[in-house]
């Protein structure tokens, strides 16, 4: 199905192009918004990234390859934008810090709030893993992190969510 979609899109089929964009735009926008914290900037980055990737659509055989490339462009465009605005990018590949896993989640009431509390790179890794079903290898390719770093991030983020859920359960029991 995804192969057919890419082939149709390559041939300039507007419906296929629309579907391809619709399949990825929400996740792409969520990742960009998490990084840039500005709706307009995030929308512009996503739009430009789509144009860049769709222009080189002939190089992709299926949607999985297409999406990996798309998210890679978006992720790095976000980092570039942050750099341009002189915002410290603490989550550049070489700086995946191993930090204390204890997080203050006192005010967190549900999982959605946990997602808000996640750092952009943690959010990126978790959405790519769960929603896009990307492998560790692919996430490493997208984020330019090492496989070990991706595993650490994934584990740490899951742990954060687990802690928050446990805390919430304890509060509910009281």
């Amino acid at each position, binding site marked *: 199905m995804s192969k057919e979609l890419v082939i149709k899109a390559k041939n*300039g089929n*507007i419906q296929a*192009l*629309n579907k391809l*964009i*619709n399949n990825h*735009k*929400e*996740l792409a*926008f*969520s990742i960009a*918004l998490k990084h840039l914290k500005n*709706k307009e900037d995030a*929308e512009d980055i*996503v*739009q430009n990234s*789509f*144009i860049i990737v*769709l*222009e080189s659509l002939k190089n992709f055989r299926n949607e999985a390859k297409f999406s990996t490339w798309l998210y890679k462009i978006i992720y790095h465009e976000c980092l570039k934008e942050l750099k341009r605005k002189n915002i410290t990018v603490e989550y550049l590949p070489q700086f995946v810090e191993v930090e204390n896993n204890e997080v203050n989640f006192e005010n967190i009431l*549900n*999982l*959605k709030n946990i*997602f808000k509390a996640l750092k952009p790179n943690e959010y990126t890794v*978790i*959405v790519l893993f*769960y*929603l896009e079903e990307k492998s560790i290898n692919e996430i490493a390719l997208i984020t330019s992190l090492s496989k070990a770093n991706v595993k650490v991030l994934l584990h740490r983020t*899951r742990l954060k*969510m*687990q802690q928050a*859920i446990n805390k919430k359960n304890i509060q509910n029991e009281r």
Partner: protein
Amino acid sequence: MSDKIILNTLRQDLKNISKENFNEKIIHQLNLSKKKEKPILFNQKSIIKGFIIVSIFVLIASLNIVEKLPQQFVIIGILICISPLFLIVFNKIHQTIIENS
């Protein structure tokens, strides 16, 4: 914690793009860049490949035929080597003709 819960919540938590005509603008931009692509007679990659192959043939031939080549042959050899590059000139002429028409 079940992965299913995370998956569903993540899906619900995705943000929507509010920009009007988001898809249309992308497709419009793509069509514009397609139109901007200049028509060519010969593929650039093939020209470079041709240039390399011809150069190698000329080099091998010159080494095999005579030890000391007269200047005339050297010039002919160079001309043969750069012959695929004339295709780039043909491409340019073709583009100019199309633009003018």
